[in-house]
């Protein structure tokens, strides 16, 4: 009997850490973001956990990009944007007095929808942030390390001085990821990182995200639900809510493990969205 038992032992599937063992990097508490009088998102309570991939999904205009941009204070660049509630990063109020937005963006990097390499060499693209931040020691090593981590090194190591604009779209996007991680952030935000890429490049980016998860906390906004289902550990579904004053704002409808969201969501609105049925 013992022999049979050991033979047919079923391997445990890879489980996420239980909630109590997850370490929150960000904690949003009753977070609302306004553009002028327009409330873009309201009442968001959400923890983003260390070294997991968190996907944010939802219909257009539900505020998912707005939320993502609050995480590294990118919305500071929009003059009429303001925020109420609280967003803590490692326990520190990210919008509190004395917090340096530039330092925030070093710790919380970002990759955008369209690859946006600078008009310079592959090497200089990756070295740019390092130079700005004065991280000039071992520059070559740092550039190589970032390019390797972004799974691009083998493709570009013989042409580091060539223009970044000569790379394919998928390579450019991985270059942008290398540029983001060169400055050793803790978190990388991805805003629709693969929507301008073909399926093979998309797959490369998704594989890369899975690799990066070992060292970084990743947050991705995506319209592609299957992408969220494939890459994310946790999924937050944002929906649109119309308040009595007629304001349309994004609200967090459901936040759970990705498997739960895509097999057995708790909220009818989530079910309607992920199945494409809308309620």
């Amino acid at each position: 009997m013992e022999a049979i038992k050991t033979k047919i032992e079923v391997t445990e599937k890879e489980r996420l850490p239980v909630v109590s063992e997850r370490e929150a990097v960000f904690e949003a508490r009753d977070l609302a973001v306004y553009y002028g009088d327009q409330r873009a998102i309201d009442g968001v309570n959400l923890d983003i956990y260390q070294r997991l991939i968190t996907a944010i999904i939802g219909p257009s205009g539900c505020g998912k990009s707005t939320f993502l941009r609050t995480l590294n204070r990118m919305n500071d660049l929009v003059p009429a944007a303001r925020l109420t509630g609280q967003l803590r990063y490692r326990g520190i109020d990210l919008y509190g007095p004395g917090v340096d937005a530039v330092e925030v963006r070093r710790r919380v990097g970002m990759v955008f929808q369209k690859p946006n390499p600078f008009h310079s060499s592959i090497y200089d693209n990756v070295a740019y942030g390092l130079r700005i931040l004065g991280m000039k020691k071992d520059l070559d090593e740092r550039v190589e390390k970032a390019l390797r981590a972004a799974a691009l090194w083998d493709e570009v190591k013989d042409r580091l001085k060539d223009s970044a604009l000569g790379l394919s779209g998928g390579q450019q996007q991985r270059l942008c990821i290398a540029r983001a991680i060169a400055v050793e952030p803790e978190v990388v935000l991805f805003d629709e990182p693969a929507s301008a890429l073909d399926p093979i490049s998309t797959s490369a980016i998704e594989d890369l995200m899975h690799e990066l998860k070992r060292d970084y906390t990743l947050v991705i906004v995506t319209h592609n639900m299957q992408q969220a289902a494939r890459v994310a550990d946790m999924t937050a579904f944002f929906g649109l809510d119309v308040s009595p004053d007629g304001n349309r704002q994004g609200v967090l409808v459901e936040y759970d493990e990705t498997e739960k969201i895509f097999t057995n969501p708790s909220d009818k609105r989530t079910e309607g969205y992920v199945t494409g049925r809308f309620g």
Partner: protein
Amino acid sequence: MRELYTSELEELEALLRDEGKLVDRAIRGALNVLERDDLELADELIAFDDEIDSRYLAIEQRIPSLLARQTPVAGELRLVLAILYINLHLERIADYCVTVAKLAKLAHGLPRDRAVLEALEEMGERCREMLGTGLEYFYARDFTDSQALIEMDRPIDRANRKLIDRLIALGPDESQREWAMRMMLASRCLERIGDHAVDIGEQAAYLVRGRFEEFTDASHKPPRATT
């Protein structure tokens, strides 16, 4: 595309309903074959299995295509998976009915025992009831009582036991012993049909609750009363 998808899901379920009705007819047919010792009916029932198989295959072939093209998620994913499994259970039940028909043919003309036939009839009717209940849970997406199916399964197990005792008591006559052996196998088929009906109920529960649980674990059944 969404409309096409919805109608594909509806068609799948309609096929399954159709298959479910045919399978119920097959069980009834198997019971009639046993009761009447009717060779012609037995052959009809064996041929009838092709009807069921055609539904089974239609569902079986549509599902991979649906999964590949529409990537169902959430409740729709559970629906497709439940249909996939229930389809398999229905097909297995139909196969057991064919086996019963074949056993009846082999037992044709041998001396019969009324009490055994009545016990088989009772088991068969219980099976039909269980299948109906399991499928109804599924169609109605209304799953309230997992105990009901298990309760229904118990008399089947009891009847099976009683029947075996009766068969053993039938005595030394060789032709009667042969008949008894055939009927014991038929009884086993009916018992298995009941188990598949419980499994169908489990699929209905999975669809509604979103998590799969076995109603009873066959390897850890409570000890049976030895009557």
